[in-house]
């Protein structure tokens, strides 16, 4: 279950990496922004879940593009590491913007609470199942976007071979913006899914940051299907770690996974780029 939810922001992160070639640490705060957007739609406007999720996607996508244009794009010529450091700073700014408006207290969604379904010694919450379905739908939508739309195919072209793409006259800046909107929008969507499962507060995204990175790295930085695979592996890994480690160490699983993967197979399971 958790793997599906984690996959969405991981895909977003990898999509951005594929096209723009840097690790965007602000993805956590964008996820938080998405969560708050969805929460506002749900509690202040009274929207049900699905429109709220779409609101989360849209607001996060726009916020991501604007933030990138303002803070990160001018730095991209200075290199990936500079941009990454700037994205850490950007993440802090965005998180605090959310905190400024909403404060630190956790909020809950205006949704009915259900008892878990039980069977065969297991139990699953209807909410979790819903989240998983939403995640799968989002991934399917992305796949269609990348495979069948012009913008999506152009994105893939730029990701695969930026030199050739620019030779063919593809506008790198425009594609970058599309990649940001889609990728960071997904991060926001994923952020709301995480919040549905836990709670909405300024640190919602930050708490899953390490797991998102782990999923992205394990699957292969820049690979969208890799991110899905990585997310499921990390999700399973974290659940299984409960057998050996206390529940609070789940974050360490992500760290270990990153370390192992980068040391032995930096390209990840499905990635093509080795550096």
């Amino acid at each position, binding site marked *: 279950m958790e793997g599906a939810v984690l996959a969405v922001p991981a895909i977003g992160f990898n999509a951005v990496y594929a096209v723009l070639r840097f690790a965007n640490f602000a993805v956590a705060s964008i996820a938080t922004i998405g969560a708050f957007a969805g929460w506002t739609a749900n509690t202040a406007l009274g929207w049900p879940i699905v429109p709220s999720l779409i609101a989360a996607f849209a607001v996060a996508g726009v916020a991501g593009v604007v933030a990138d244009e303002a803070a990160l794009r001018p730095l991209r010529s200075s290199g990936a590491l500079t941009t990454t450091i700037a994205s850490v700073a950007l993440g802090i700014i965005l998180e605090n913007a959310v905190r400024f408006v909403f404060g*630190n*207290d*956790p909020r*809950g969604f205006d949704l*009915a*609470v*259900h*008892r*878990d379904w*039980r069977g065969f010694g297991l*139990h699953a*919450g209807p*909410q979790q199942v819903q989240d998983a379905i939403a995640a799968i739908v989002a991934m399917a939508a992305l796949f269609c976007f990348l495979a069948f739309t012009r913008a999506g195919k152009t994105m893939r072209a730029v990701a695969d071979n930026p030199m050739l793409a620019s030779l063919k006259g593809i506008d790198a800046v425009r594609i970058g913006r599309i990649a940001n909107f889609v990728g960071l929008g997904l991060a926001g969507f994923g952020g709301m899914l995480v919040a549905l*499962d*836990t*709670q909405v507060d300024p640190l*919602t995204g930050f*708490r899953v940051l390490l797991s998102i990175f782990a999923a992205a790295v394990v699957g292969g930085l820049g690979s969208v299907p890799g991110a899905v695979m990585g997310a499921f592996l990390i999700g399973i890994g974290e659940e299984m770690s*409960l057998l050996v480690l206390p*529940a*609070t160490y789940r974050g360490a699983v992500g760290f270990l996974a990153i370390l192992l993967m980068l040391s032995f197979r930096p390209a990840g399971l499905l990635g093509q780029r080795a550096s």
Partner: protein
Amino acid sequence: MVITRRTALAVGLAAPFIRFARAADEPLRIGALCPLTGAGGQYGPSMVKVIQAAADEINQAGGIGGRQIAVTVADTQTNPDAGVAGAHKLIDVDRVSAVVGTWASAVTTAVAPLCWEAKVMLFTVSGADSITKLPHQGYIIRTQPNTRLQMTRATQFLIDNKAKRVFALAAQTPFAVDSYTRISEVMKAGGGEAIGQIIYDPKQTSFRSEIDRALGEKPDTLFLNAYAPDLAVLLRELYQAGYDGHRLTPGYAATPTVLSSLQPELTSGLWSFAPSPDLDSPAYATVRKILGTQNPDPYSCQVYDHVNMIALAVAKSGQTTGMAIHDSIRKVSQGSGREVHGATEGMKLLAAGTGVNYSGASGPCDFTPEGDIISCKFRFDEVEGGQPKLLSLS
């Protein structure tokens, strides 16, 4: 200071000062170190309001022999790190003689060494047993019943309500382990059993694995030793997990905000326990008036007593230092003097040479040599339709 955001915040509360330094004498400086935000954020603002009102009341009646009381406020954020930063500022910069109102046991434990090393009196509303066992040389006074007393009464309530198998889910605090030890002792003596405890990190946003393990032991009662934010999550997830047994939680966790933010079916039947203020005391009536409510929380009642006792101790000793308060506090809070319910009333008697025994909004305010109160009343409530209903008070 740049190290942490919390450190920076607590020290940054430089703006809201209240100084009444009109008298030629040095004012009596008191620091209000309360949780204005964080898990205890429900109580901090009203505690500060009461502290300031109590000081105002005394100042307007002429102060302490002409000396005014000056209150400085700092936010602990219910976080020991910020609490320590706030204490540093109050002690080093504002030169307070007493720190009043630390709420979370972890904050009090962190702040206490700063106070006793600087010979500043610490008046706290925290309950953990370990606090008064620290080597504080008499510089800690607490008006909250300690964990041992609380758990004894709470567990007795459970036994009276036919609980047989109690499992505890506790937030990580200085009193988690001591609480469970006492619960086990009392359950055993009462013919039941404490079947286990899981301590969790209150910052987690989900407790499903902990709940699964707890319910696997088949308890008939869960003791939720939580703070407000984690209680909300626990109640929701317990409902989702299909738990229908009894639940008991401390009153400071089942705040009105928590109860109103959850659907009624999640909180229906929830038991809570809390030390009760002295409902008949004139001091209690004063606190009611200050806060404008019929049911002031126990902490606001306690800090009212703190300020009044400090004033009396200073009046008795003639000096404003922390050490002076330390030496005189029990001469005014207990003993054979005449019973008084306010500092102004008591100071008149002291000036006339009569001894006083302060008895306040929170109770008789008589302290052991370690700084604990000797006894107090408790109330037990059950939540129905999102509102707590009083079950018993004794």
